């Protein structure tokens, strides 16, 4: 009997090593990186503009050359051959080395920028000094660690974006989406804010200074947007400053819900957002490493929603701390603000409970817990807050802990540093409060869904494996059920890798969007009615 064999071993063997072109490309990219490393160790480069250009070009050309060799000569189609055989993309030795190196970089960046050469009162040294010419060209000031990071981040999205474009050149959805993230990163996150800094002190800002503002970075991802110093800067910068502040508020309360209703949260998470942009380009090689277990899903829901509660409280506390108490001076006082927040949350929560209860099911209880934590905290603010203190903490302390735990450790060190270990969307999935809020909207009030094509699923598992958000897509598809999940960022890869054309991201009527009774698995109608009986 040929099928009778007790052996359980299934060893994959790496089919091939890198081609000569690919090795040269890696070498070139490493040279570019090497220049930056030498600069970190204070090797002084005489002509900084030249060496910085050389370094960035070498890295970019290295990545593009490698991708060209890997994809351009092949027939367009899915290019996942050997993904689980390669050390870098399957948590092998290279994966761990890359993970540790990235994590190390983030720790230095966030907590020890002086090792990168940051000098607060005097000329920069090290690698930051290397970026001075570019920074001066764009915003007129010497570079900071954030300028260095922003530049490298943009280069990564552009270079790996080209790689992604080649890899998915048969897929127009993927191509357009990638052009979009490349555009928003370069324009909105990098060039526009740097140029805006040049306006500071100018008369069109009434001589004021605008805070650094990446326009597509929306609260609560941009958790510091409504802090006192920023509000002051906005308000002191004339009409433009005021308009930007209004835009910041409209972004989260008006623009976001409308776009999410029409297109799902993908309009932001995989078309616009910078974190998403990096995950989809530089992180693409690691998307398969996300954890698909139901346990991970449970952890995800607790952690990401706790972050939402945390950021809401923190922001409320921060705004509360700088508001006054005298209504005659300014209409918005500490008390009216707290009441306003409470009313808004009650409206949202009440709406979800009354109209969307059936869709929330068990999650409703957790939502209720979150809601009551916030409301009780708000009451606490009101009664137990002394001078400059909120509840038991200083609002500054709350803000600092958020910034440290969530802003730095979670989004940077774990979120990006651990790409090669946990996959590319750890931050987006477990940590991003913006994603959670958009997810809430997507789940409850959006036309977006991934439609399952009747009974065509063969349960192969490509969709689940390549879902960067760790959604077990197959679990829905094999039942003929549409996929409507809060966490789905709409990257479209499940649909791309499906060998049977089962999945389609689309916007359609709300009616029958989640309804699993729409199944059509191939049997005649009578049986399907019975199967659908719950």
């Amino acid at each position, binding site marked *: *009997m*040929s*099928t*009778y*064999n*007790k*052996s359980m*071993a*299934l060893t*994959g*063997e790496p*089919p*091939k090593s890198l081609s000569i072109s690919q090795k040269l490309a890696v070498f070139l990219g490493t040279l570019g990186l090497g220049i930056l490393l030498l600069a970190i160790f204070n090797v002084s480069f005489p002509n900084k503009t030249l060496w910085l250009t050389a370094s960035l070009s070498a890295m970019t050309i290295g990545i593009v050359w490698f991708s060209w060799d890997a994809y351009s000569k092949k*027939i367009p189609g*899915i290019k996942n*051959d*050997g*993904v*689980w055989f*390669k050390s870098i993309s399957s948590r092998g030795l290279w994966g761990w080395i890359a993970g540790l190196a990235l994590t190390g970089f983030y720790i230095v960046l966030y907590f020890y920028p002086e090792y990168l050469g940051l000098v607060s009162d005097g000329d920069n040294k090290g690698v930051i000094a290397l970026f001075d010419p570019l920074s001066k060209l764009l915003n007129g000031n010497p570079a900071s660690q954030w300028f260095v990071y922003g530049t490298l981040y943009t280069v990564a999205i552009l270079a790996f974006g080209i790689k992604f474009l080649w890899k998915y050149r*048969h*897929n*127009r*959805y993927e191509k357009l989406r990638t052009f979009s993230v490349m555009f928003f990163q370069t324009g909105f996150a990098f060039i526009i804010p740097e140029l805006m800094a040049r306006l500071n002190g100018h008369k069109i800002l009434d001589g004021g200074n605008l805070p650094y503002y990446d326009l597509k970075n929306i609260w609560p991802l941009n958790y510091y947007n409504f802090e006192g110093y920023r509000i002051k800067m906005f308000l002191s910068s004339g009409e433009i400053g005021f308009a930007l502040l209004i835009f910041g508020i409209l972004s989260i309360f008006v623009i976001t819900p409308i776009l999410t209703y029409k297109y799902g949260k993908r309009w932001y998470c995989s078309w616009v957002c910078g974190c998403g942009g990096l995950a989809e380009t530089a992180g693409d090689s690691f998307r398969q490493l996300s954890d698909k*277990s*139901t346990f991970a899903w449970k952890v995800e829901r607790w952690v990401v929603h706790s972050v939402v509660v945390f950021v809401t409280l923190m922001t409320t506390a921060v705004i509360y701390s700088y508001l006054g108490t005298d209504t005659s001076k300014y209409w918005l006082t500490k008390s009216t603000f707290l009441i306003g927040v409470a009313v808004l949350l009650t409206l949202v929560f009440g709406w979800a409970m009354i109209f969307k209860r059936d869709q929330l099911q068990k999650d409703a209880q957790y939502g209720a817990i979150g809601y009551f934590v916030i409301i009780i905290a708000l009451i606490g603010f009101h009664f137990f807050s002394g001078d400059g203190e909120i509840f038991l903490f200083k609002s500054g302390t709350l803000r600092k802990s958020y910034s440290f735990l969530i802003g730095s450790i979670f989004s940077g060190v774990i979120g990006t540093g651990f790409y090669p270990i946990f996959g590319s969307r750890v931050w987006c999935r477990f940590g991003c409060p913006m994603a959670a809020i958009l997810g809430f909207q997507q789940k409850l009030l959006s036309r977006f869904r991934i*439609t399952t*094509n*009747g*009974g*065509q699923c*063969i*349960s*192969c*598992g*490509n969709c*689940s*494996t390549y879902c960067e958000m760790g959604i077990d897509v197959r679990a829905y598809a*094999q039942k003929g059920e549409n996929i409507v999940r809060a966490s789905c960022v709409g990257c*479209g890869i499940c649909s*791309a890798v499906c*060998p*049977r*054309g089962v999945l*389609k*991201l*689309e916007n*359609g*009527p709300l*009616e*029958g969007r989640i309804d699993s009774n*729409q199944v*059509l*698995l*191939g*049997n005649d*109608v*009578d*049986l399907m009615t*019975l199967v659908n009986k719950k």
Partner: protein
Amino acid sequence: MEHIVIIGNGIAGVTAARHIRKLSDKKITIVSAESEYFFSRTALMYVYMGHMKFEHTQPYENHFWEKNRIDLVNGYVAKVNTQEKSLQIDDAPDLSYDKLIIATGSKPNKFGWPGQDLDGVQGLYSKQDLELLEQNAPNNKICKRAVIIGGGLIGIELAEMLRTRDIPVTFLVRETSFWNGVLPKGESEMINEHIREHHIDLRLGASLKEIVSNGNGKVKSVVVKETGEEIECNLVGLTAGVTPNIDFLKDSGIELGRGVKVNRMLETNVKDVYAIGDCAEQHEPIGNRRPIEAVWYTGRMMGETLAQTICGNPMEYKPGQWFNSAKFLDIEYQTYGWVFSEIRKKENETHFHWRHPKEKICITIAFDKDSETVLGINTFGIRLRHEIFDRWLSEKRTIDFIIEHLQDANFDPEFYKRYETMIVSKYNSEFDKSINLKKKNLKRIFQIA
């Protein structure tokens, strides 16, 4: 408590088990010698290609089975005793049952070729076949060339797999064009081109005469019947179809043909013994279907149906409109209804065929010459909405209607190039019609008033 025993943990058996659990509290046991847990057979190729690890092919987490009280027994059923209602299992204690479901699937065909049992000769069906392939063809140093015998779906998958490891592949196809017993000419020829584009040495009209041994029980070469050519190779893939895996039932008293004979209730001649999936053979074929349907979807459908019968809701196996799909290297294929090849086509079946001038994209619509009712559609490189075509076929729509509403049926990802205009204009000029393409309409698609 009634004890349901299922032999085989493939899609048919597991679907039956899941649905029986949904509907009842019966004791359920699944026996399998192949793997500890259910996995998707159709995904084995991706494990060899490195797209997935084996564990990714398992649709349910390991705790699923205990949670749903489905017992798993790892062992090979050597004998079925229908009198005593018990199973004799190698490596596991005997098992008695109240109802038995046979869902043992298939095994690769071997047609008595000389040398077919040599080392290095194998099929591709089971997990063990995949493990064997990993030994026989781990890379192109150990396997300098592979010869694949039989041009069907598994053959082309095996060729694709081997090519991802840069192993030279010679593909012997007995027919004059790839899979042309099933596909119409235009489609079959397009796939020929695509196979060659992937640097696979496709030999049409070539069949196997014998497999030659190297003297140590290993394959050395194969000889082509038509030309007498001897091709040196280290692996021979036998992919000339599959046959039900039912040898262990020989003396059980259960009626066997090529498969386990069943009626429309999926019952065998022995009371309380049922057969589903690849191994079941209908006494009378259903419609245009073959009596043995070795297809993932039909296995699943039989599992769903039988679960109803077993849980007190007797039900015939009544598959709806035929559908199937596959992927030929980079080209996705979907079919709904019946489109027959020139070889099997009936007299009244007419085809409308459109192929993109440059890309490997085409469609064929089969319709009745007289009534113009659509019989079926094949698409290559275009995805179609299953629900829409199922509906149109059930409503017996005409070809004019379908051409006019083609945009409603498209299931390609957003922003993809659309070809309906080209298709419609070819249809109009070929059949002298003046159909105007209707715009995609969500209300029609989702049937909302």
